[in-house]
């Protein structure tokens, strides 16, 4: 017997997107949140640099400039009506967070402090603009804490350490989810009028990754298994500055404060690739430039990494060269970037104030995901039909505001803006609808699937399959892609999926069985890896985060469109919603 619960609105995931949605839904309907992690453990807490909004606290800024930067950053694949909402509502959303108590850093006159970030510019002067609102380099931590605090204040109901393993979708309507209570191993059915998937990203497909162990794409994968499409899966962002070999992120805020990339010859090589924005060019451009340097033999000691240099005297030297009057000292850098400086000290054993830091691109952010409309309602197909009662927001979703490449700070904006819109819409919907029936047996397939994994006595080891998956993805579905590479990866992934059917796990128990849940999560990663490779193979052009060496140019004639892919591997495309901005060549 499964335990049964009923809520008007059910949010799956307690990161920034889920908590924002829950907060707004709970204002008027009976709302619960289930999360496989304690809410404050969500990876939103790892976000470092900032959340952008054209507050204009430091210098003139306009939300329209933010919108243009977002569209350009996304290599013109973003839906421009969604981008307008993102950038316009960002201003109000950031103020909303401040009113909830978020401890932003302050300017001398007491306003929210802002700093520069990659790809954000004054559209008139083309120079970097200070738009990223921040709390040291712990902005995500503060957002997550603040939203959780507000949820406690508003008595939002939490089911902590409950993991969704299936969704109840019948006749195009979502009626709830099936989850495991990790502590007891019991199955629970959550019957709901409105469900939101806010389960975050899936960066654990790759080995070198900034993502948490828990980011295994459960939401998108369950959606796929329920017959829903995923959008733009070929667009995955590799952030240029991961700690060498570990992938731990060093925020772009470092470069926002003046840090630069240096190759083995001591050159500031970004000058050659992005003459205007230089080290603050968009992430896809920086990551490719790093690997171009490495291929040209300019990696440090001929190896596969370069330096990120935040020594104050070097920063000042380049400020001077750029005609920028700012100057920094060690104390300032320590105060603005305390966490990432500590990461370097702890994990690399070097001091970034006196030594340059070895970095390499790291798998970071999913631009693609569960397609939604402007109110976070999940789309059933490429024609805009919706799945009634189902919503998605945050990194798991694809609105699409980030297009082919997300600008730094825009994910946090996305969580807050579309989390809030989704939460409001869920409440509105729940108030005008009844609970639709579900059968008493509705949890049986999920239960059987889990028991199947638990009792399987094959020879294959999930740890080994995970390792091989990550290696293939790093090698062939990374910053540079080719037809041969992607085909090889696809074959490997399909081979791994076959082997996955014959796994065995050690822990046959019921309570807190992480062996079991990790094996289930591996299944999610395998499904998502497959559709990522398929989507990437089909897109014969280069755009934003998707770079095909065999098709190095953007091809607006054939590919200015979003990919939808289904679990049976069929694909379709739909047009990008254009607006004020027509595609132009992207220069930084």
């Amino acid at each position: 017997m499964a335990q049964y619960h009923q809520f008007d609105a059910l949010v799956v995931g307690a990161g920034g997107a889920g908590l924002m949605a829950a907060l707004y839904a709970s204002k008027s309907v009976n709302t619960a949140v289930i999360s496989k992690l304690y809410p404050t453990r969500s990876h939103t807490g790892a976000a470092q640099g900032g959340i952008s909004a054209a507050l204009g606290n430091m210098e003139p800024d306009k939300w329209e400039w933010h919108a243009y930067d977002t569209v350009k950053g996304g290599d013109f694949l973003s839906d421009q009506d969604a981008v307008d909402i993102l950038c316009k509502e960002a201003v109000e959303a950031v103020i909303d967070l401040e009113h909830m108590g978020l401890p932003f850093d302050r300017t001398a006159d007491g306003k929210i402090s802002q700093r520069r970030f990659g790809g954000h510019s004054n559209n008139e002067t083309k120079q970097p603009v200070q738009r990223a609102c921040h709390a040291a380099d712990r902005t995500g931590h503060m957002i997550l804490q603040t939203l959780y605090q507000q949820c406690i204040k508003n008595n939002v109901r939490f089911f902590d350490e409950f993991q969704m393993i299936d969704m109840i979708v019948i006749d195009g309507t979502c009626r709830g989810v099936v989850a495991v209570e990790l502590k007891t191993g019991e199955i629970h059915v959550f019957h709901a009028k409105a469900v939101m998937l806010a389960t975050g990203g899936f960066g654990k497909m790759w080995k070198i990754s900034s993502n948490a162990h828990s980011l295994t794409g459960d939401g998108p994968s369950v959606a796929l298994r329920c017959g829903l499409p995923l959008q733009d899966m070929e667009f995955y962002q590799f952030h240029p500055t991961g700690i060498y070999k570990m992938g731990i992120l060093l925020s772009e805020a470092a470069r926002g404060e003046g840090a630069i990339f240096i190759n083995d010859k001591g050159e500031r090589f970004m000058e050659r690739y992005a003459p205007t924005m230089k080290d603050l060019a968009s992430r896809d451009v920086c990551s490719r430039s790093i690997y171009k340097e490495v291929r040209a033999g300019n990696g440090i000691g001929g190896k596969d990494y370069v330096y990120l240099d935040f020594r104050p005297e070097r920063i000042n030297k380049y400020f001077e060269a750029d005609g920028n009057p700012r100057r920094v000292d060690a104390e300032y850098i320590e105060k603005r970037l305390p966490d990432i400086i500590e990461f370097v000290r702890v994990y690399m054993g070097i001091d970034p104030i006196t030594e340059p830091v070895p970095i390499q691109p790291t798998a970071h952010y999913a631009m693609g995901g569960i397609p939604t409309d402007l109110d976070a309602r999940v789309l059933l197909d490429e024609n805009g039909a919706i799945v009634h009662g189902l919503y998605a927001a945050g990194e798991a979703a694809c609105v699409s505001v980030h297009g082919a490449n997300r600008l730094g700070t825009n994910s946090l904006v996305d969580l807050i803006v579309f989390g809030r819109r989704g939460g409001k819409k869920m409440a509105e919907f729940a108030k005008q609808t009844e609970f639709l029936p579900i059968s008493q047996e509705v949890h049986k397939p999920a239960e059987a699937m889990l028991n199947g994994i638990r009792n399987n006595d094959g020879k294959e080891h999930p740890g080994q399959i995970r390792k091989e998956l990550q290696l293939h993805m790093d090698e062939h579905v990374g910053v540079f892609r080719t037809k041969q590479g992607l085909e090889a990866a696809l074959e490997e992934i399909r081979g791994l999926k076959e082997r996955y059917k014959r796994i065995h796990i050690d822990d046959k128990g019921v309570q807190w069985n992480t062996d079991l849940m990790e094996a289930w999560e591996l299944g999610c990663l395998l499904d998502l890896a497959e559709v990522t490779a398929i989507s990437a193979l089909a897109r014969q052009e280069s755009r934003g985060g998707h770079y095909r060496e065999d098709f190095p140019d953007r091809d607006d004639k054939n590919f200015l469109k979003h990919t939808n892919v289904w679990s049976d591997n069929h694909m379709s495309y739909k047009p990008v919603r254009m607006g004020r901005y027509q595609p132009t060549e992207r220069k930084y």
Partner: protein
Amino acid sequence: MKVHFKIKRFNPEKDKKSYWGEYDVEAEESDRVLDALQTVKWEIDGTLNFRRSCAHGICGSDAMRINGRNSLACKLLIRDAVQGGKIVVEPILGLPVIKDLIVDMEPFFAHYRAVMPYLINDTEPGERERLQSPEERARFDDSTKCILCACCTTSCPSFWVRGDYVGPAAIVQAHRFIFDSRDQGAAKRLDVLGEPEGVWRCRTVFNCSEVCPRDIQVTQAIGEVKAALITGRID
């Protein structure tokens, strides 16, 4: 290098008592203790259970007692942890063990909720941000860093003795709001912390400050709350 791990194991479905699991792991000196635990789990014994997520000291999932001292397994490197080729890992103390290194965190979060860990200010904030000077903001900066990992609370002898003590983590959370110039709930929180289960249980043993993986001056924060209770002033 080869490292010998002694890990305290307990499976509620099988074991009456905990026992030591022993594992030899091949690890780099610069690996995290968490990496080695993952190696045990993924390559030697899949039945080992522990919580983890971010793997870089941000989410607060993997507080454990490593060689007798509370740490985040992901923030402690093998070279700093290993003693005579050995690393001993146990669950944090003072909270009921559920399975292996996983303890029941509910009592910890109940204490957290008890101090009203949210901004209390019922005035109309207006259209723009509430203003706060950099100095006012700096006043509570240290306590905003808390990730609720429970390293501090579960290293505190007063908490071991009486689990109804709210504990250092909850006091740090209260401090974060009491000293925020925008907050108006200080009196209510001080009422809670002035109770017998509140700050006076603190005997300034300093364990909390020593183990905090975020380097929060926990004992100092507790001291400031005590001072506010005694003087009735917040400054």
